[in-house]
Each structure stands twice: as structure tokens, then as C-alpha cells.
């Protein structure tokens, strides 16, 4: 207050002491516009570049805002405005790669996406004896492989994850060592590098089946190592949200613990559980490294998860670039097509998850 009056006295400021010593409300917007125009003009002289323009605009804006605010207002407010600007820029910095990634995948992949690409198994098949390479566009083998491997992984991890979370929430005594250890281990498991999961599956199956142990099932085991902790986490979270009153009411009516969980707790939490499971499937469906380790890659159609290498969409996207065939463009196109299909799958799974969460949410939770 004393600061304000001092300033007002010094500047001979207007009578309205509440708004004196402040930048007007339109200042920020007009500074953004001004710095955009100014940096655009400067770049016109040097050669225009969209990214450069954005960067220059941000820098000019921050500098001008900081200087103006510290002249008109004070240093504290200038810092405040500066931090607000920096934080907003950081957010935009995160949006840029997201938009850019999605745009790149769609624009590059859309050309190779066709009905044939989805319904035909193909790719560049390499004959080691004759060194001949033949190219047919097609991703059917990869789509089937992805669905089979992810499906098996889900079949393994959903029961284990769900039952573990039921144990943690419903059965374990508070503070029992098993509950604490399992919680800690689940935390640790979320941090397992995906490639290590792949190595584990490969090691396990190479001990059982010998050195050429590539199979879809092995990849599914690797994926479930990655998937179980996320399933446990989301289910646990959802089960803990079920009000204790419901359990108590059920138990008080003489209903057994099993029926209470199966008839009362699980149905209440089912929307959240399904959402969490969907999202964890979306998470592992894009894993490349573990599948690459455990199921290797192939261009042959293989729908038997217990025998031989299996192709999947992420691995197809990777191998198309890492080990291109003789027709490099065709390999790259196939890779982009596979990447686009993969992104579409992930988006669909996310959408389903959100719809499930919206539609089946228990009444009265919102």
C-alpha cells in the first residue's frame, strides 16, 4: 500500500490508485500480437521459417513483457508475469511434438493405407538361398500377430492383476508384510525396462525350448510382465474408491466375503476397472522391444502363437526402417502404414476406455 502511494506520489498518478502501477489488461494480448508481427517481419528479411518464427515470437514476447512490467509495475510482478509466460511456453512445447508426431504419422501413413494393406499379408520377403527379395504391401500378418499376442497377454495379466488388487484391497490385513511387499514389488515392476521384459521371456523360453525360442506366446509373457503392474495399480485404485459402507452393509446382512466382493464391490467398480484394463492394453500394444526380442520378426503369416516367429505392427514399423528390403521406399511405406495402424488401434482403445468410463460410471459419482 505504501509502495503504491509512493509510486502514485512520484508519478503524479491518476486518482484511481487501485489500477495505477499496473499493466492494462489488454497488454499481454497486444504484446503477443506485436511480438508475432515484429518477429515475422524480421524473419521476412532473413528468410521465413515457421518454427523460427514461433521461437522468436516467444522470446520477444517474454523480453518485452518482462521489461515493460518491471518499468510500469515492479520487479516482483515482472517476475510473476515472466514465469507465467515461461510456463505457458513449456506447455506449448509439449503440444508441438504431439501434434507433429500425429501429423507426420497420418500424412506419411495414409498413402500406404488401403483395403489391401489390411487384408493382405505381405512385406518384403527375403530368400536367404537365392538372395531374392519380393515386395508385396500388406500388414495382415502383423495385425493378426498384434491381436493374438496382446490378447494372450491380456488373458494372462487381467486375472492375475485383478486378483492381486482384490487381495491388496479386500483380504490383506492393513500393514501385513505380504501386502507391503507386493505393493513395493508392483511399484518396482512398473519400472522394468520393456526390453528387459523381452529378454526375460526369451531367456525363460530358450531354457525350455532351446536357442531358437521365438514364439508369439513368449512375447505375450513379456508383455504381461509389463502389463500386470498397470492392471494391479488401476484396479486397486478403483476398488479403493468403492465406499466401505457398501461392504459393511453386505457383510452385516450375512453375505459371505466372496459374494460381497463378486456381487457388490466388483460391479460397483467395474467401469473403472474396464477403463484401466483398456488403457493398459493400449499401453502394451505399442511395445516394440519386448516383442522384437521374444517373437522376432517375419513376413510369413503365422497365427500359431506357440510355434515360430510372429510379426506385429510395432515390430513391422521398426524393421521397415532398421532392416529395409532392397526397395527401401516400399519398406518405409510399409513401416509408416504399420505405424498409422498402430496409432489408430491405440486411439480406438483409448476411445473405448473413455466411453466405458462415461457410460458405465456408477450413478451419483458425478
Amino acid at each position, binding site marked *: 500500500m505504501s509502495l503504491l502511494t509512493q509510486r502514485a506520489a512520484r508519478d503524479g498518478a491518476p486518482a484511481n490508485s487501485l489500477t495505477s502501477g499496473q499493466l492494462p489488461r489488454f497488454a499481454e494480448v497486444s504484446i503477443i500480437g506485436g511480438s508475432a508481427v515484429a518477429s515475422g517481419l524480421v524473419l521476412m528479411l532473413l528468410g521465413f521459417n515457421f518454427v523460427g518464427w514461433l521461437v522468436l515470437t516467444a522470446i520477444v514476447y517474454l523480453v518485452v513483457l518482462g521489461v515493460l512490467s518491471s518499468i510500469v509495475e515492479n520487479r516482483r510482478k515482472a517476475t510473476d508475469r515472466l514465469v507465467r509466460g515461461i510456463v505457458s511456453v513449456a506447455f506449448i512445447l*509439449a503440444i508441438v511434438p504431439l501434434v507433429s508426431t500425429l501429423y507426420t504419422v497420418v500424412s506419411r501413413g495414409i498413402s500406404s493405407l488401403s483395403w489391401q494393406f489390411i487384408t493382405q499379408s505381405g512385406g518384403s520377403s527375403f530368400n536367404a538361398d537365392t538372395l531374392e527379395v519380393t515386395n508385396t504391401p500388406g500388414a495382415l500378418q502383423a495385425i493378426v500377430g498384434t491381436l493374438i499376442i496382446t490378447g494372450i497377454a491380456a488373458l494372462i495379466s487381467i486375472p492375475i492383476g485383478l486378483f492381486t488388487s482384490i487381495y491388496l484391497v479386500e483380504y490383506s490385513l492393513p500393514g501385513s508384510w505380504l501386502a507391503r511387499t*507386493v505393493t513395493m514389488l508392483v511399484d518396482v515392476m512398473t519400472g522394468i525396462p520393456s526390453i528387459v521384459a523381452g529378454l526375460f521371456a526369451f531367456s525363460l523360453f530358450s531354457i525350455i525350448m532351446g536357442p531358437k525360442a521365438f514364439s508369439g506366446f513368449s512375447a505375450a509373457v513379456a508383455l504381461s510382465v509389463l502389463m500386470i503392474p498397470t492392471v494391479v495399480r488401476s484396479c486397486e485404485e478403483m476398488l479403493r474408491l468403492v465406499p466401505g459402507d457398501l461392504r*459393511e452393509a453386505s457383510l452385516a446382512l450375512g453375505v459371505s466375503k466372496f459374494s460381497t466382493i463378486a456381487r457388490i464391490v466388483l460391479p460397483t467398480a467395474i467401469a473403472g476397472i474396464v477403463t484401466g484394463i483398456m488403457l493398459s492394453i493400449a499401453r502394451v500394444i505399442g511395445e516394440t522391444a519386448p516383442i522384437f526380442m521374444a517373437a522376432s520378426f517375419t513376413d510369413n503369416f503365422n497365427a500359431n502363437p506357440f510355434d515360430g516367429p510372429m510379426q506385429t505392427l510395432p515390430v513391422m514399423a521398426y524393421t521397415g526402417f532398421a532392416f529395409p528390403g532392397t526397395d527401401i521406399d516400399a519398406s518405409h511405406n510399409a513401416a509408416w502404414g504399420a505405424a498409422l495402424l498402430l496409432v489408430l488401434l491405440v486411439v480406438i482403445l483409448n476411445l473405448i476406455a473413455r466411453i466405458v468410463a462415461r457410460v458405465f460410471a456408477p450413478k451419483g459419482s458425478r
Partner: protein
Amino acid sequence: MSDDMTSATPSPRTTSRDSLKNSGSAPQGGGAGNGGASLRGSRVRPGDLIFHSLSTGSAIFIMVILAGVALFLIIQGIPAIVADWSTDPSLHEGFTLAYNNFWQYVGPLLYGTLFSSAIALVIGAPIGIGIALFISHYAPRRVAGFLGYIVDLLAAVPSVVFGLWGIIVIRPFLLPFSEWLNTNLGWIPLFGGQVSTTGSTILAGSVVLSVMILPIITSISREIFLQTPRLHEEAALALGATRWEMIRLAVFPYAKSGIVSATLLGLGRALGETMAIAMIISPAILVSIRLITEGENSQTIAANIALNFPIASTLQRQALIGTGLMLFVISLAVNIIARYIVTRGSAGGGGKKRKRPTLPITPMSDTSATTTLDIVTEEQKLGRIAVNSRAEGASV
């Protein structure tokens, strides 16, 4: 968020357990307590027994899995770790030719892993924390959830897609930048050496890595920023602090340990990331701190495994599994340290234990679950604030 839950959940659980015990003691008097049957063992229903053992069994199975991961990596890795690489015929060829033993091979790879992750962290952590701050304290409340969802979408993009994006977009994008760095700041060792013409540098790889670790850092820091006690923030604002001063005085001290562990969990993610590095950089197994050179880019463990696994012989595969074991140990250590920092933070508070932040349950939080939870949390928080202020009013 989980703070609310951990503080909220024990009560229903203990009460339900109490009620169980009560009804368990009831049969002696009345004999109508089915709920207590499993505890007393007088009349166990088969459904109960099966369900209980199934859930306990899967909890134990998780321990078995983790032990199995370590065990099988050790079993498969040991032969190559103890072998003498200079004499062993199947190791003295191919990509393992130049090395005398396992440690000579894994050393530079370890360095490369830590180096690239460190760069990714230097780029990603400030941005990630900034975004978290933007979403939790700057963005309008109505759109904050949606903005968080957008950032979480980054976590949903498969890593191989980021790899492709890095090849097509980031490599050419960084080329002029790295040339400029090399000519103007070449005297700094980081930017020295022969500048790359393709852009397949460790800098490009780390930039993509930093994008990939953004969502995990952001979602964890955001949850912890949101847990800051409302009264602290309002007190700071009421004393005339600007928003930034409020954040510095109330939010940061409270969230310090959370920020550190969010960064560490981001590091853990970066350490194990395979595809971005494997697809983008043209690697060499050496120790170099140069960022933008041709052929002086330190290779990482994960990318090295991915590149060499298909062409490896059996013993070489075991060597790669040995390097994977090292990666497993490191990322395990990083993760455990991250969790430890948070628990120590909550233990160090003494009497103020409840007010310390806890890690959100899912680190890379699933989006819609988080948004629904946020709503619940807001309500709980409001409830707690009401309770707090009531308690304070009472004490005053």
C-alpha cells in the same frame, strides 16, 4: 490424490474388519454370524476359500514373476559374464570381437545409457515440471483436466512411432542447430568434433527421449502440486504474494521430494527406452561426451541389444542378456531410490505426516481414470479443507 485415498481408505477397511470380528464373536452367543465363519474356521464356504486363495496366490505370483525375471537373466547372463572373451571362439568374432571381457563391453554401454538419459532429463525435466505447474496452477480450472489429458496422450503414443518421428522430423530439424553450435560453441567439448551431416546424433536421440519422459514427469509432479494444502496457498496469497511467490513459498517446499522422485522416475523411463535411440542414432561403443558428431555417439544398452540381438550367436546373445541384467539392476536402483525419497519425505514429517505428498498410484497415469479420480479428489479435498478449517476454528 493417493494421499487422500490412503488417508481415507483405512477407516472403511478397519471398520469392516471390526465388524467382521464382532460378528465373528457373535456365534458364541447367537450363532448367526456367517461373516465371521472364515475367521473362526467353523464353517468355511468353498467359494470364499477358493477366492481367498486365488487372490493371495496371484499376489504371491507377482513376487515369483519378479524373482523369475532376475533369476532367468542371471542364469542366461552368467556364462557370457564369466567367459574369457579374448579366447572364446564364439565371442571372439562379430560385434563382440574387440573386447577382452564382459565388463570392457558393458562399461561404455552403461556410460552411453546414463549419458543420453541425463541429457534427456536436462531437457525434459524443467519442461515437464513447467507443464505440471501450468496445468495445476496457471491454466483455467475448467480446461486444466483437458490439458492434462493432452499431455497424457503423449504417453499413449507407441515408442516406435516416436522413433519414426525422430528420424523424419527431429534429425533434419536439429541439423542447422547443431552446425551452429559446432561453429560457434565448438570449444565446449560437448559440441566439438566432426559435426554430423545426417543428424543421427545422440542429441537427436535425447531430444526424442525427453519428449517421451515428459508425460511421466508431468503427471507425477502435477498430482503432487495439486496436493499442496490449500490453506498454505491461500495464506501466501493473502499476505500479498504474487502467484509465482506463492508457488515458490508454498508449493515448491511442499512438493520438493515429489519433484525429485518424478524426475528419477523419468530417468528410469529414459534408461530403459529402446526404440528411439536404436532408430535414431548411429552408434559407436565408446565413451564420449560429444553430442553432435558423426560416429562418436555413445551407444546405450537397450538400443545395443535391439540392434545386435537378431544377428547374435548363442553366447553373444547371452552377453547381450548380461548387459540387459545390468540395465535391470540400474533401473531397479533408480526406481527404488525414487520411491524411497518419497517415503522418507513422508516419514521425516513426524507429526505432520499426513500433510506430506505421496506418489500417485499410477506413475504414467491413465488418462480418463485420472480425470474421474480428480473429480473425486477435488470433492474429498474440499471435504478435508472443510474439516481442517472446522478443526482450526475449534482450536481457535
